[in-house]
């Protein structure tokens, strides 16, 4: 029965979500990119030549335009650009989702503790958040990368996550503050529940929808930061990403000779971030309490 409840609530939300033109477009775009990411696992299996990193077409010595063999052409050493684009989608999802997930978990936990505990804990945690929030994450990453050499993709993910939790924690904190004084929290305290239990059992389910909403926006920013970093030449050199493709086209001097090489990754970065952004906006509408009330009354 409780399972049915959740399903019912989800279906209701989904209806509002999919009616929204932003939601519809966002989901469609996202599905296309998901297919691309899944395809990246199979392309090298067709022919080792299509491996995005190591597969080199033996017949090709320079960058060539689209052909039947290579849908988008090849780069200057004969690697297939279409395969690289698929691989880039996979990396973008990994970077975007995992760094968004880490920053949401951190932001939610810190925000809940800060809002619930109040006093000195609140002041210390929020000043820390302020300090991190005003730091330009790309510049910090560039400085770190130039100090310690090129980073592994997971270290980049982690640093982006660390830079991006404060905004989430501020939102969650303010939500927690308004929940804290609600009678059901006090009822739980009267029943003898510990602070930890109150935070995770009573406050968390009430702030999670908001956290998920913010996760979509975090994904967008993580993808953009990673792309910028890679384009500037500080990405993980052992991974193909869209930013990396742009870096290669720039470095090899084909920037203005090979539009078939330069345009697709740029377009993909824009479209994927756009689709997450639209997803977030549509979710915003689902979570908007005024709208939800209207839906309930019907």
């Amino acid at each position: 029965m409780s399972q049915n409840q959740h399903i019912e609530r989800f279906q209701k939300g989904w209806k509002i979500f999919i009616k929204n033109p932003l939601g519809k477009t966002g989901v469609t775009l996202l599905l296309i990119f998901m297919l691309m990411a899944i395809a990246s696992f199979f392309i090298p299996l067709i022919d080792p030549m299509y491996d995005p990193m190591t597969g080199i077409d033996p017949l090709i010595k320079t960058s060539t335009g689209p052909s039947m063999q290579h849908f988008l052409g090849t780069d200057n050493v004969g690697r297939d650009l279409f395969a690289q684009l698929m691989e880039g989608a996979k990396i973008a999802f990994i970077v975007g989702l995992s760094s968004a997930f880490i920053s949401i978990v951190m932001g939610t936990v810190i925000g809940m503790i800060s809002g619930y505990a109040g006093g000195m804990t609140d002041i210390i945690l929020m000043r820390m958040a302020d300090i991190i929030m005003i730091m330009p994450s790309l510049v910090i990453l560039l400085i770190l990368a130039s100090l310690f050499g090129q980073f592994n993709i997971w270290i980049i993910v982690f640093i982006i996550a660390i830079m991006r939790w404060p905004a989430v924690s501020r939102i969650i904190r303010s939500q927690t503050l308004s929940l804290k004084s609600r009678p059901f929290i006090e009822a739980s305290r009267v029943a003898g529940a510990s602070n930890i239990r109150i935070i995770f059992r009573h406050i968390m389910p009430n702030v999670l929808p908001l956290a998920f909403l913010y996760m979509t926006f975090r994904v967008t920013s993580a993808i953009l930061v990673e792309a910028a970093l890679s384009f500037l030449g500080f990405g993980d050199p052992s991974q193909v990403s869209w930013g990396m493709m742009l870096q290669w086209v720039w470095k090899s001097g084909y920037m203005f000779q090979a539009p078939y090489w330069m345009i697709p990754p740029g377009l993909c970065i824009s479209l994927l971030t756009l689709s997450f952004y639209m997803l977030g906006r549509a979710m915003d509408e689902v979570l908007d309490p005024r709208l939800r009330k209207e839906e309930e009354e019907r």
Partner: protein
Amino acid sequence: MEDKEKRPIPVMELKGVTKEYCLRDSFFSRGSTCVIAMNNVNLAIQKGEIFGLVGQSGSGKTTTGRLMVKLENPSKGVIKLNGEPLSNIQGKALKSYRSKVQMIFQDPYQSLNPHLSISETILEPLIVNKIGDAHSREQKVINTLDIVGLAPAREYYNRYPHQLSGGQRQRVAIARAIVLDPEFIVADEPTSMLDATIAIQLFKLLKQIRKKYNMAFLFITHNLAAAKYLCDRIAVIHNGVIVETGSTNVVIRYPQHPYTKKLIETHPGFNF
């Protein structure tokens, strides 16, 4: 003083309790303005008694209830449970206190977590106080649901608050308060959000529970008629001061304090 020895030890006793809320004037100045919510309040509630606390809004009656369940601490004075004073109890002592003193909140739409089912809500006090095992807890919840009149209990067991009416929600809140078999319950205007017929049903329920478990209640209300129906003794509170205490009939029939008289006059059709 002789009188005191004859009487049994009260379940809940307030002695000279004062509660002030202070706000600093501004960030830079040292001074502060204080609002006195309760001023030197003395109350003693006996076992099995329903004690009414009557007053208008802002008179300090809710504060009194919140102090008793230790949601807040008094600025001055002592609160005693079964004769034992509690000043700064913590840890285990606080937990055992919590299991003996429970509260029913005013607004049943706010006092239940919308994300928890009815069973989860009522189970919580049992779980946090580590009473029984999974099976006996479930049985206890079902029994309690039966007692508060949510029958058949199985049908309500997995429902969520938004599927219940206000009266049913308040019954769930009552179930949560009595599931630990407490000795004392603070009921903070439990029916002010509900209509009159449902209020009467809930009053009957509270009386039943009192009879069955011999629990003591502090019934906080602004409604003299409700207090008259339900309470054995009442205290009238005005601006944080208890102006009159006594058995309900006596206080309502022969009010001594001018404020009590005024309060009774404002209830039209309150004929005796």
